[in-house]
């Protein structure tokens, strides 16, 4: 081994402390990069692979009733590669020991078996059904268990033949429920002949799945298809991007992608800055060694290589550990996703490219961090470098600031001037600590946003106990039926009409919702969360997000094409805007809806229920055949909280850990640098009669000042990041998260950063206590 390499190893051994701090921060960056990118990639690949294996259809179209020959007609359209006509409905299901109303989407088994994936058991025969995975797992149902399904007014017992998943059932949402709830909703498949009779669809279908030929234009085929299906009560053709299940999956992947860019960048940037600091300090102490080596004939290139190798050596453990932990975390995250995304398998897929990217980024951070320190140290001529470094200069610029603060003790002045003499370095370490605080604020803001969504949706806007969705549009008598149920105090009808809205900027398809005039069970909220007046007559009230998407304002008109029934197209004015966390939606006054779509009709109802008789009412509803969905507000709230709590808890734990590592790493590095630079001063104070405690206080004061200075920037950065993040992922077509932060969010972030900093500082304070007075005073720096 060459002497210079031997020196490299010994230097590295002396830098174990800073290297650990640095590696920990870097490991967080690499881990988050590998984990988030790896998870996103694994999900993406699993999705693509699953969709491809199961030939996920490109278009889905609903009709009221079309004879099978229409499917052949559709198959013959140009651009269509294949069609799959199905029978499909939502049906009440009874399960022994479960009192809640259960609704499952019942579909006929596809003709081709490879359109779904059997996870256990066998395909269903007569009297058997195939159960979707989420519902099966939630109730621990397996082959041989029995369910009762209400179809066409008849209650029939079916034996579970197996458990399966399908590409359109990856993420299952019940009607009237904005969140998935595997306990109350799911999917099941029956043989076609089991369904034909009860649904009165013999030799017909009500759901058509279409695969496009390579290169075919989706919108063009959709238009053709709509034309073919219109006579049969076509309710619109949805491309994959407008179907709920794939849309949720894509949305989640998009969020993951944003996070994968965001979080690692913070850590890698801080690691680069720390490394620069460590290298600058090391080279400060090796000034004479550098000069000596140059005097002995080592060139600048050799020295630069020498110190860069050292820097790279310091980042290597962080990169390795981070990659390993990242790969482990991918598995953890996937098992979390597995509970919500019912792909048949989620294969962890950490590519060499991601590891390469992570290590490459780490090395680049090391290079960027060390380059400046190394090049400035090796640039000094040997004769100059062999002289001791000049004493640090004070009395200029910012260091004069504390002069006027008469109340400041000399110790306080020392602390302030030392910080102010290197404003850039101090600023960067303050920034590092602020980033730690910001990370936590970010997690907290996401939590607070969820909380506000819950409060607004389930407590302020929704006042009903139960909401019911009918299987088909019904008249006044449906409300009377509900009102006669046991314990029903109040019944308010509502109507949802599927339409396509066209604005100057974009179009959107979804339901126009009209609630019974004088209804009190749903309130419209304005942007401040206060109750807004009910929708005025004569037009539509859009959520502000939808108005922005379509590019229309109040007073302008929007084109409304009805997607069921007569497909009539009308120009309707926008008469108001609302603000709801469920981002896109349209409201109309009841009379307006009647004028636009005709008749007194209802597609569902809101119920206020006597709490004592609620179970009785739900049991009665569970047996009501013409109901597609029953959502219990309380249960919806619980499902939402469960779903969010899982992900928020994981996110918050991981980010707290990351932030602690970041804060501890920055404080440790600052402390080591300060100790190296101020050892002589601190020892002098001890000689002058300052106690250990007083000297430790001064030292800790310098570190504490940085932490203190980082609080407000940390909060500000947290808010800024949250704004970006919410802009990037918080407002999708499904959700719109408000930007709110409760005081507890700031307190939590501050507490974590302060605790991590304090523990690290105390660790360093023991070094101050052990200062060797005599040795420090004898040495000339």
């Amino acid at each position: 081994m060459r002497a210079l390499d031997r020196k490299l190893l010994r230097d590295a051994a002396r830098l174990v402390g800073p290297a650990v701090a640095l590696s920990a921060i870097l490991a967080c960056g690499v881990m988050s990069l590998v984990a988030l990118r790896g998870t996103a990639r694994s999900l993406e690949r699993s999705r693509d692979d699953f969709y491809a294996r199961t030939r996920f259809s490109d278009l889905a179209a609903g009709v009221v009733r079309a004879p099978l020959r229409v499917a052949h007609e559709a198959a013959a359209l140009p651009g269509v590669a294949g069609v799959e006509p199905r029978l499909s409905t939502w049906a009440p299901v009874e399960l022994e020991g479960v009192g809640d109303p259960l609704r499952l989407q019942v579909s006929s088994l596809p003709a081709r078996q490879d359109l779904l994936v059997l996870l256990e058991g066998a395909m269903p025969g007569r009297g058997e059904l195939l159960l979707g995975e989420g519902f099966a797992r939630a109730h621990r149902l397996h082959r041989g268990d029995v369910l009762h399904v209400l179809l066409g007014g008849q209650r029939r017992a079916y034996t579970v033949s197996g458990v399966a998943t399908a590409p359109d059932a990856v993420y299952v949402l019940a009607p009237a429920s904005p969140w998935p709830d595997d306990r109350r909703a799911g999917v099941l498949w029956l043989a076609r002949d089991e369904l034909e009779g009860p649904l009165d669809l013999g030799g017909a279908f009500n759901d058509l799945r279409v695969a496009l030929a390579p290169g075919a234009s989706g919108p063009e085929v959709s238009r053709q298809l709509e034309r073919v299906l219109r006579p049969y009560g076509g309710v619109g053709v949805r491309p994959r991007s407008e179907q709920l299940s794939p849309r949720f999956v894509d949305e989640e992947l998009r969020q993951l992608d944003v996070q994968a860019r965001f979080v690692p960048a913070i850590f890698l940037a801080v690691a680069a800055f720390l490394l620069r600091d460590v290298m600058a300090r090391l080279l400060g102490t090796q000034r004479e060694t550098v000069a000596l080596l140059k005097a002995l004939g080592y060139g600048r290139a050799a020295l630069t290589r020498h110190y860069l190798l050292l820097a790279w050596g310091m980042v290597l453990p962080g990169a390795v550990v981070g990659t390993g932990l990242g790969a482990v975390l991918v598995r953890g995250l996937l098992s979390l996703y597995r509970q919500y995304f019912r792909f048949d398998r989620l294969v962890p897929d950490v590519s060499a490219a991601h590891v390469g990217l992570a290590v490459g980024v780490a090395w680049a951070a090391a290079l960027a961090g060390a380059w400046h320190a190394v090049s400035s140290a090796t640039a000094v001529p040997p004769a100059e470098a062999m002289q001791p470094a000049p004493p640090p200069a004070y009395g200029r610029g910012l260091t004069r600031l504390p002069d006027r603060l008469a109340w400041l003790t000399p110790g306080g002045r020392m602390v302030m001037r030392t910080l102010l003499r290197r404003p850039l370095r101090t600023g960067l370490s303050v920034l590092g600590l602020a980033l730690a605080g910001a990370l936590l604020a970010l997690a907290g803001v996401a939590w607070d946003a969820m909380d506000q969504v819950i409060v607004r949706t389930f407590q302020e806007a929704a006042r009903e106990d139960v909401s019911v969705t009918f299987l088909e549009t019904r008249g006044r008598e449906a409300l009377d039926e509900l009102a006669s149920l046991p314990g029903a105090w109040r019944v308010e009808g509502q109507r949802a009409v599927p339409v396509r809205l066209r604005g100057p900027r974009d179009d959107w398809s979804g339901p126009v919702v009209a609630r019974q005039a004088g209804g009190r069970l749903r309130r419209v909220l304005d942007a401040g969360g206060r109750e807004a007046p009910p929708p005025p007559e004569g037009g539509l009230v859009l959520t502000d997000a939808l108005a922005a998407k379509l590019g229309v304002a109040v007073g302008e008109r929007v084109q409304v094409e009805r997607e069921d029934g007569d497909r009539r197209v009308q120009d309707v004015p926008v008469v108001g805007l609302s603000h709801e966390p469920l981002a896109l939606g349209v409201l109309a006054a009841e009379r307006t809806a009647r004028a636009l779509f005709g008749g007194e009709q209802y597609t569902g109802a809101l119920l206020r229920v006597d709490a004592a008789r609620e179970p009785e009412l739900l049991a009665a509803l569970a047996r009501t055949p013409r109901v597609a969905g029953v959502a219990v507000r309380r249960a919806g709230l619980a499902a939402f909280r469960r779903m969010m709590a899982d992900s928020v808890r994981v996110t918050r734990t991981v980010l707290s850990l990351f932030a602690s590592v970041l804060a501890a790493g920055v404080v440790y590095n600052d402390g080591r640098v300060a100790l190296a630079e101020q050892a002589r001063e601190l020892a002098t104070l001890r000689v002058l009669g300052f106690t250990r405690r007083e000297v430790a206080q001064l030292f800790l004061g310098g570190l504490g000042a940085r932490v203190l200075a980082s609080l407000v920037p940390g909060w500000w950065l947290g808010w800024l990041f949250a704004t970006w993040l919410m802009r990037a992922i918080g407002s999708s077509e499904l959700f719109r998260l408000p930007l709110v932060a409760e005081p507890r969010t700031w307190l939590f972030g501050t507490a974590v950063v302060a605790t991590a900093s304090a523990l690290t500082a105390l660790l360093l304070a023991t070094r101050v206590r052990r200062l060797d007075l005599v040795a420090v005073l004898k040495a000339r720096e």
Partner: protein
Amino acid sequence: MGEGVLQARGVTRTYRAGEVEIRALRGVDVAFEQGEFAVLLGPSGSGKSTLLNILGGLDSPSSGEVRYRDHLLSGADEAALTRYRREHVGFVFQFYNLVPSLTARENVALVTDIAEHPMSPDEALERVGLSERADHFPSQLSGGEQQRVALARALAKRPELLLCDEPTGALDVATGRRVLEALARAHGELGTTVVVITHNQAISQMADRVLTFGDGRVVSESRNRFPVPPSEIHW
């Protein structure tokens, strides 16, 4: 040897450096009287700095007894030694040891803030002739000026004991002399007991008593009947 304010009896100090045992002091008996100006001479490694550190409460003897008035320093704990330094001892070092981030006045104030009956920082600087430089930082002062600030800092608490380790070691003759003049004046005016370590034989002309060290012991001791003022010393 008479009873003094500060006395050492049978003091030894042994360091371990790896496998080697270094015996820096091999039994020193010495006493300093109130108001005395003593100089310790001797080659490097003769043990004089070790003794000074022990007398100043920066280090403890391996054996023997060190006493300041009625305080036993040998065997005292860290807190007691800190209190001793804080209340009774002023130090001046070869390399000044000023805090670079504090002005001359603030460096002195470091001590006056924690001492019991200090003079004001301005008075201390006045005594060493640096009133006009009070607002300058160490990096803006010459070596001699920095050493005089260190002296002012040591004197400001009105110490009973002033311990100086090579106070002129890093200075040229003219600036060294100005430091010694300030030292002599303070000694005269405050009645402080002064112990100075030096390689510089000439400085011993200022002293009341000169102790010469060799190989960890006091090898000779002499008294000056007529100490010479610094202005008349040449080296």
